[in-house]
């Protein structure tokens, strides 16, 4: 057990899997010689060679199509989108081919797509998005959004093991900001299982990714309020039972995400709570999310866009006082 950054946990987990399993290969833009835009695969090409750490052309279609083909041929590719935003270029290979292949032809597609996502550093509209809900909506794809270093490693290994395409959303803002104990040995974190970030009795916050920390900071500011934070970890499949159990206990739910509001995955969670736990609710389900605009460049505008601690404090207070 050692303390590692979120980024180091991903890098070490991936290296461990590549050492263990020769079918695991890496493909992406600048992942080889350069070691990746965020240096997750630094030193990988030296260790595993250019055939397992492949510098792809500037084409997400080629990366995702190539990974899908390699998976059909028995490999377990880990494809990197330099920024999650760029995945739109590879939509057709991922959504039309990879997601459907198993239903169409019975062929498993065990690919992992690593997606550096999220804002908070003035990256602007092309380098800051959280597109998980777009892909959670596609049957055949799985989406995970770890918040802690230990979960990042455990979910990455689960994603590689999984016979389906798994989108691994790694939040850029957490890369070097978050540290935590990460077991040295190989382990998996089950996809679709939530983690209780903190227990509480008064209000439930359902969230994932970097917003877990925003929620925790907000809860800490409200000393008199007992806040339960459910870190979903996976948005597809998602842990409905954990969420419903928590809401049945507290009777008040706040769904928080960094993605934009309309059609964000929070809407699915809120709807499920209303359907399944209606008779346990003591307040309207509240959503806090980014407004329905592209991510702004300007730091003050970006601050206004991404849900901040004070926004969550206000939301929690509103629910508490309802």
């Amino acid at each position, binding site marked *: 057990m050692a303390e590692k950054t979120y980024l180091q946990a991903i890098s070490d987990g991936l290296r461990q899997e590549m050492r263990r399993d020769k079918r695991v290969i890496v493909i992406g833009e600048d992942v080889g010689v350069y070691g990746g835009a965020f240096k997750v695969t630094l030193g990988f090409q030296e260790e595993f060679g250019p055939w397992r750490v492949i510098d792809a052309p500037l084409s997400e279609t080629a990366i995702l199509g190539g990974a899908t083909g390699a998976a059909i041929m028995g490999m377990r590719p880990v494809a990197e989108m330099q920024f999650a935003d760029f995945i739109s270029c590879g939509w057709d290979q991922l959504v039309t081919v990879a997601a459907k292949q198993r239903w169409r032809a019975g062929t498993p597609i065990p690919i992992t797509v690593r997606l550096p996502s999220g804002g908070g550093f003035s990256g602007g509209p092309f380098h800051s998005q959280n597109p998980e809900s777009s892909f959670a909506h596609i049957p055949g794809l799985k989406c995970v959004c770890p918040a802690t270093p230990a979960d990042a490693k455990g979910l990455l290994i689960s994603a590689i093991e999984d016979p389906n395409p798994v989108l691994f959303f790694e939040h850029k803002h957490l890369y070097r900001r978050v540290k935590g104990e990460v077991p040295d040995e190989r382990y998996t974190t089950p996809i679709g299982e939530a983690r209780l970030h903190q227990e509480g009795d008064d209000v439930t916050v359902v969230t994932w990714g970097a917003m877990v920390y925003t929620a925790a900071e907000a809860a800490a500011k409200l000393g008199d309020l007992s806040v339960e934070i459910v870190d979903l970890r996976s948005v597809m499949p998602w842990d409905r039972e954990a969420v419903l159990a928590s809401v049945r206990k507290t*009777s008040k739910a706040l769904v928080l995400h960094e993605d934009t509001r309309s059609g964000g995955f929070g809407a699915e969670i809120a709807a499920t709570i209303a359907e399944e736990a209606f008779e346990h609710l*003591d307040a309207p389900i509240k959503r806090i999310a980014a407004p329905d605009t592209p991510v702004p460049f300007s730091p003050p505008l970006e601050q206004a866009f991404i849900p901040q601690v004070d926004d969550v404090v206000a939301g929690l207070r509103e629910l508490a*006082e309802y």
Partner: protein
Amino acid sequence: MATGTAVDVVMPQMGVSVSEGTVTKWLKSVGDHVDADESIVEISTDKVDTEVPSPGTGTLTEILVHEGQTVAVGTLLGRIGDAGAGPAAPPPPSGASVAEPATQAATDAATTASSEGDAAPGEDRVTAAEPESHDGHDRTFVSPVVARIAAEHGIDPASVPGSGRGGRVTKKDMLAFVERQQGATPAVPAPEIPAPAREPASAQPPPGPPQPEGGEVVEPMNAMRRGIAEHMRRSLDTAAHVTSAIEVDMSKVVAIRDRLKPEYQRSYGVNLTYLAFVARATVETLRDWPWVNAELRGESIVTHNYVNLGFAVALEGGKGLIVPVLKHAEGLNLLGMARGVADLAERARTKKLLPDDVQGGTFTITNPGSFGTFHGTPIINQPQSGILGTYAVVKRPWVIRDENGNDAIAIRPIMNLTLTYDHRLVDGAYAGGFLHDLRARLETSGEADY
């Protein structure tokens, strides 16, 4: 998107210590179109009278709290529906309907307590709309979880004291109630418990207003009048009031004002009043007499290195009194003072004051002199330690010393000033010193000193 979007108009929180407000006037009728931010209803609290801007655009579909009624902060006053929508239909019966009888009684009592009860039947549409407003009243909204617990235990939610917004019964209220009941009578089956609990609720209606006798008119106090009554009584019960008076020769002030007044009006559109001069001189003098600008807090004396100067403003038609505060008056010159006083007075009269405008005063000036009165003993605005009264400037025969050193009688504009002070903190000599210095300032200061 627009389907079914109703916007609630609620009693706003007008300051931290304000817990209720009175609807003084609906500016829109049911069926009227209203734009977002347009004034929709006038309310009155013990701190401030104000107009509530509409929270949305659409049609006023329901008025739930009528003129004259006083309700808690957060209470639903009315609803705005989509443009063109008619009055909202009563909600379908639900598990919440068990709350009906007690609610009806409570609302009836509230109506009787207001002047509404005197209205002739069918007199206007407000009366006609009443049955709906009873059904749709949000005060007794029962959340799904509360409805479920109520059904499971056979409890009428209306018999449970609510701690939620607008008095709503929360899940916690419900669980605590169940626990208390079970603790009290463990042997009795749950469904039988609520029966006795419901009895007293209907058996003890709140006391109504006193019945008028011959020649009397009885009307309810509004929130402001109640606030004034409470504050005045509390101040007299708190402070040891003593008043000292002094006469001030205002010749210099009159001369300066005559010179500056047209210029202020022309250049700044500001009316230069005697009050602005007195306020300027007061702020300067308070610096040397800090206990007059202080308060007693428990066993401590709290002085201020700033002056938040309150001005008592009478509302038109004898509707009451409000004391807006000019913050950091020590930083204002004569123009700033004149402008600030005029702005506060204007906003007080047009009900545009914000809660912040009436809080945090450290000293107050009251100016009944405009009616010609020459003396008074005002009541201190708690928790302050003094209040200055300014009175009419009148021409009087005045004994002066002429250039040869002989006594002579001249005609001089004289103003009386009173300082009412809290003798617990300020002694007579101290108060006299303050008044002496204030007079000296007003009698000797030149234009440049203001």
